[in-house]
């Protein structure tokens, strides 16, 4: 049941998780997200918190609210998300990772590198 850490508020962590799923194409652009109640039941989180998470996605332009129909993935959301995640990885996570690889003496030949697509 407990799989939330203390890095950020719960709604933010949920938003991040949903964003990761969007990146994977679930649900695809133009399709509807599960309803607030469905998400609440799935993650066992208060519906109000789920709404805040969805609002965070709306604020990032990844998701839009269609009156009476729920939340839909916006067109181009996947690309936009990919771009921001790429930037974040390259600017924040990669330098630390590269330093670590250096420390461990791992070269690109050691890495099991495949085209990720």
């Amino acid at each position: 049941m407990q799989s939330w850490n203390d890095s950020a508020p719960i709604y933010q962590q949920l938003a991040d998780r949903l964003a990761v799923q969007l990146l994977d194409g679930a649900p695809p652009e133009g399709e509807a997200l599960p309803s607030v109640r469905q998400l609440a039941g799935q993650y066992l989180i208060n519906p109000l918190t789920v709404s805040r998470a969805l609002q965070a996605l709306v604020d990032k332009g990844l998701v839009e609210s269609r009156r009476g129909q729920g939340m839909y993935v916006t067109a181009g959301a996947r690309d936009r998300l990919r771009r921001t995640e790429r930037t974040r990885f390259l600017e924040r996570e990669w330098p630390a990772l590269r330093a670590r690889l250096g420390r461990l003496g791992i070269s690109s030949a050691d890495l099991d590198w495949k085209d990720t697509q």
Partner: protein
Amino acid sequence: MNLIEANELTLRYGKKTALERVSFSIPKGRVYGLLGHNGAGKTSLMKALVGLLPTDGQLSVLGLDPRRQRTELLSQLCYIPDVAVLPRWARVHELITLMSGLQPRFSADRARQLLKRTSVGLDDKVKSLSKGMVVQAHLALIAAIDAKLMILDEPTLGLDVMSRKGFYELLIDEWCDGERTVLISTHQVEEVETLLSDVLMLDEGRLVLNISLQDMDQRFVALSHDPAQADAVAAAHPLLRYRQTGGRGAAIFDGTPPEHVMGLGERIRPNLVDLFMALTRKPALAPSQS
């Protein structure tokens, strides 16, 4: 209109004070957690809310006086008391029949529908059910009452993980629709944290915190820091200091500490368990508006 209005509620048993000048309001569409250690006054408060205990002060539940209009109030809310035991001699379908006759807002069809989610059969005798199944059955029966307010007193006490999970799933799926409110008391804070929208914290009869989780994220600041910075952090008088797994130190402040203190570490989420520990061992804070 708020579903519950409590003002200066006080309850005394002889020399012991179970509740001391407790005031709060509870609106609709929320999941309120009533947190407190054993003996903090949670059960006393809940019994007062359903008219089983008399109190000093003003109390209005669903617009009614719980003590004087007890029967009418009970026909408008759902209540599972602490260690409530369903009558062991009864079969589940008999309980459905009895509740249909006693509780005007009860829907037998809804009860049967909710029971399908559990592994409890209509023909089962209560005494043949495991503890977890009894609680699930009880919740299914109670959730079939079309009421605005549900009061649960430590409903998952003594249950295994699967039963607890099933319980919370039923609650979220079938009950929380934005119009109804649940007040759930527990001392298993970590489990219930994500379900809550608001928190009432009791410590020895006094209300030490009354806040929405959203406001809690903003009001309380938790800092994760290198153990070497411990003294510097302590100098800023946090509410609580503790060790994280992995050896890092952590501290919770009420309000944002000065910048130089913030610079000593990273900001993390103040989780409810730690806040609970911090507040139920120290003098009361001024309760914020919820």
